[in-house]
């Protein structure tokens, strides 16, 4: 199979009520690739991920996933394959297990506890009480549940918005390692927003640096 891009952004621009946030952003993501997105606060990094996930439609430009415009995909199907872990990783009311299988459940899929255990081990969150209240987890634990929850969907593209901001370096490295191994296992591509320069350098193959348009103009 020729290595067709898994995700293509072409001249994506975004404005909120006349306020320009993104201008002509283009990027190409391939399988097994980790692409970093950096830039100052408020420059539109989260907005860009939302556009890729089709939670927002850009004011102009296009996003193609597997060579098909995202607008031609069924939104739920697209978001199962292009999963986003939002910046504020929220837990659904209920247990840790309920949170982990939440994504699978909405797509009518199930899983065994063994698989949950395996994925939790990979994000360095095992052992944990699967029947415990997810709301009682620490910020860093919640982030890892959110990542595990996304990985269980076996996405083609994983969109991570500052996924390790609440983790210590060791846990962050472990999460990176997990994602790296999944990259080759699943023919996955990763777009990761990070503030952490070191993380961008060691973890990503390319970095897109966004600038703050409102300040520039």
């Amino acid at each position, binding site marked *: 199979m020729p290595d067709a891009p898994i995700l293509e952004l072409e001249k994506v621009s975004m404005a909120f009520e006349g306020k320009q946030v993104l201008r002509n952003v283009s990027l190409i993501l391939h399988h097994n690739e980790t692409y970093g997105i950096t830039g100052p606060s408020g420059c539109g990094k989260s907005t860009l991920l939302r556009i890729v996930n089709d939670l927002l*439609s850009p004011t102009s430009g296009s996003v193609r996933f597997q060579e098909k415009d995202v607008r031609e995909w069924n*939104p739920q199907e697209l978001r199962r394959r292009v999963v986003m872990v939002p910046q504020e990783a929220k837990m659904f009311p209920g247990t840790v297990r309920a949170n982990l299988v939440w994504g699978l459940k909405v797509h009518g899929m199930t899983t065994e506890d063994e698989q949950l255990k395996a994925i939790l081990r990979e994000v360095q969150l095992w052992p944990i009480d699967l029947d415990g209240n997810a709301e009682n987890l620490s910020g860093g634990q919640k982030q890892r549940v959110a990542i595990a929850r996304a990985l269980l969907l076996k996405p083609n593209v994983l969109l991570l918005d500052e996924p390790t901001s609440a983790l210590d370096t060791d846990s962050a490295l472990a999460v990176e390692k997990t994602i790296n191994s999944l990259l080759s296992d699943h023919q996955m591509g990763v777009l990761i927003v990070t503030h952490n320069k070191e993380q961008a350098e060691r973890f990503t193959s390319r970095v897109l640096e966004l600038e703050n348009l409102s300040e520039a103009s």
Partner: protein
Amino acid sequence: MQLDLFALFQIPEQYTVMLQRYAAAMILLAVLIIVTKWQGIGIGHKLIVGTIRGTIQIILMALILVYIFALSDLIVIFGVLTFMGVFAGHTTRSNLERIPGVMRATLPGILVGALSVMAVVVVLEIIDWRSGPGEFIIPMGGMLIGNCMGLTSLVIDRMWSNAQKQRPLLETALALGATPKQATELTIRESIRSGLLPNLNRYASLGIVSIPGLMSGMIIGGVNPLEAAIYQVIIFIMIFLSAMIAALITSRLFLREMFNERAQLTVPPPEP
């Protein structure tokens, strides 16, 4: 009563007493408004407008009620109920004016919820309405419509404010590929539950704490107390059923106002 020429130029005594009572109630209203102001609840002007409008409406209604109760044509009676339902839908819109598309969601819910239950009651003759169709069907229908109105506007208010306040949670759900319905399921369930709570309380304390007006009226009107009591239980079940139907329809329809066809949230962030 004797004929007294002077009486024509005076306000009859029964009305002066009534106006005094109304004035006394206005003092209570003033206290209420002061309390809401003080507590920052911010419904003061709604209370004032509601009082003026409500007084006029109910006086007009009292005057025509005699005729409405005398109605015997089922089609006309259901026409009156439909009018009441439309008015209820309009009311939900004006009480939730910051939210767009309210009436598009509540009106079908209220009409289907209240009228379908009322139609079943009439067709199956669950209540003995034949002795006075207007007298039975209109007040009962009104009760159902009122409860549907209350629950649907609560559901919408909750759905909207949750979408504003718990945006990240909603976004988390959508980003995992949840449909708008799946993403809001919990909110809808909780708002229906809490919206039914006052009535569940009334239901549980029925006859001991809450002595419903309809039952009292029937007993005063000479209906067998046992029959009046049974009616009251039936009415509660009708209320729950119709309010539930209305809430489910309204919540489903309101999803279309909150999300677009790409399942993107269109609710704006809360005003600062």
